[in-house]
């Protein structure tokens, strides 16, 4: 079976002030259709660079992709003409960003922001939808992210919403174009633990109900366990270990993964090391 997304041997460096740093060293990972995959690693390991490379958001320069392929649905995104690439981003694959406040425009209502994105996606996909159709779709996605009063939320400005509601709006935004792949970079880390739990459950329910593939990017091993069934562990720009989530947590093979897991405090108290 071929994967929906397949990153193959991706190498990326950054050149700043005449110094070059190898940031990704031959990263390979697969996200099959409808699968829930996590990419976990500590700060600076290269998770966000991987995500940006997939989304086509790497600033080049200073970044340079020297090797590798990013296959999406059988096509290499890195050699795709820019126009087709742009058409995929935000349609077939969508991002859920971490920081709701800086990803929302403070002076527009939620409905205006979602409508703008929907129009854009519709245009790229050659869909025809009138004003009423767009309004209906906006209310529909707001309901899908379990907003209790989608009509009222649609009329709200971001400042009027709680942090958890803003994170839901961002998920709604990502769902607008009916993507096949959702990439989430540390969603909910800025939120309280109870709100984060709601957001993670929402994401899990959504990908299951809609058959979406999910690539969850996080530094939190607990979040990995809650949201994925396959995991890649990244350290210093390399995938050091991969495997089914439950098995990898129970029996990590690499020393790096073992140390990482051992460093996580347990809700049950001390574990004998």
């Amino acid at each position, binding site marked *: 079976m071929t994967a929906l997304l397949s990153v193959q041997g991706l190498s990326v460096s950054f050149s700043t002030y005449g110094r070059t740093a190898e940031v990704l060293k031959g990263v390979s990972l697969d996200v099959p259709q409808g699968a829930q995959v996590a990419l976990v690693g*500590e*700060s600076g390991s290269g998770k966000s660079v991987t995500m940006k490379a997939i989304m086509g958001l790497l600033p080049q320069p200073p970044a340079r992709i020297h090797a590798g392929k990013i296959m999406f649905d059988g096509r290499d995104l890195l050699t795709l003409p820019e126009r087709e690439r742009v058409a995929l981003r935000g349609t077939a694959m969508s991002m859920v960003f971490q920081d709701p406040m800086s990803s929302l425009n403070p002076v527009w209502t939620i409905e205006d922001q979602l409508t703008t994105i929907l129009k854009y996606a519709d245009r790229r996909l050659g869909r025809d939808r009138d004003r009423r159709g767009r309004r209906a779709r906006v209310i529909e996605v707001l309901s899908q992210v*379990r907003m*209790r009063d989608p009509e009222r939320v649609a009329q709200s400005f971001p400042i009027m919403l*709680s942090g*958890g*509601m803003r994170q839901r709006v961002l998920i709604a935004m990502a769902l607008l174009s009916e993507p096949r792949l959702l990439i989430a970079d540390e969603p909910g880390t800025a939120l*309280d*633990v*109870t*709100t*984060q*739990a*709601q957001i*993670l*459950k*929402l994401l899990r*329910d959504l990908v299951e109900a809609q058959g979406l593939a999910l690539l969850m990017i996080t*530094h*939190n*091993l*607990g*979040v*990995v*366990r*809650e949201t994925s069934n396959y995991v890649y562990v990244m350290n210093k720009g390399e995938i050091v270990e991969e495997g089914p989530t439950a098995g990898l*947590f*129970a029996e990590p093979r690499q020393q790096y993964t073992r*140390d*990482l*897991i*051992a*460093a*996580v*405090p*347990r*809700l*049950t*108290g*001390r574990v004998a090391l």
Partner: protein
Amino acid sequence: MTAALEIRDLVKTYPVRNAFGRVSGAVRAVDGVSFTIPSGGVYGLAGESGSGKSTIARMIMGLTEPDEGDILIDGVSVLGQGERAKVQMVFQNPGASLNPRRTVGQSIKVPLVAHTYQGDRKGRIGDLLDMVQLPRHFADRYPHELSGGQKQRVAIARALAVSPRLLVLDEPTSALDVSVQAKVIDLLEELGRQLGLTYLFISHDLSLMRNFAQTVGVLYLGKIVETGPVARVFERPGHDYTRLLLASVPVISTEEAAMRPVIPLINGEMPTAEDLMALRAGLNPKETAR
């Protein structure tokens, strides 16, 4: 035996302002909080954003005066005494709490000068760096030359400079990677034993709290809704809010998952704290404000 720290019925109210800056009400940020920490003990204060954790910490530090209540250190009230050498604090963000233009040595010297330390200051700085397991020559480094974990060690060294009795740790490791966090926590435990320190530990991370604190208080909207030995509170939580918090923790093993209380879903979703409180009070959760 007298407690190292005792706080009695602390209350702190802040004015709430409307969009035009006019005072439109008041929020009881801390609403009648009492607890004691025995000498050498670790008391964990858990609770979500805005529950009043930092306000309590600031009152203990003498940075904010309480409206009501009392704070006793070693059995003596310290209200109205301003700067308290016996209590020092380590903050969440190690980058922001160190002055970028001061070397590590200069930063550690600040409290020594402020509290007119009489001995050999240079030697004391070196000893403090030893204590937090950093090389002595780090005294000449600037914060930008240090990693996050190293900066937090410097912040701990600075807090220890005037030999405090009590350290208030406000989310001391939440900006650090887990592997670095584990080492900083080990260091704090080691220092606690060596120096007989008493800790007030503030954190969102309940798994970390379980491992570091002996007693825990769960704060919700300025009130402690549950308190007790950490093992008892985590294994047999008595309050709905504690249960909700525990149920929300992302965990990495089936043993931990089995320990989380099961919370009834509302419309297929984990309830919010407000929902749960409303349920408890017999209201319809959909009718409560969010």
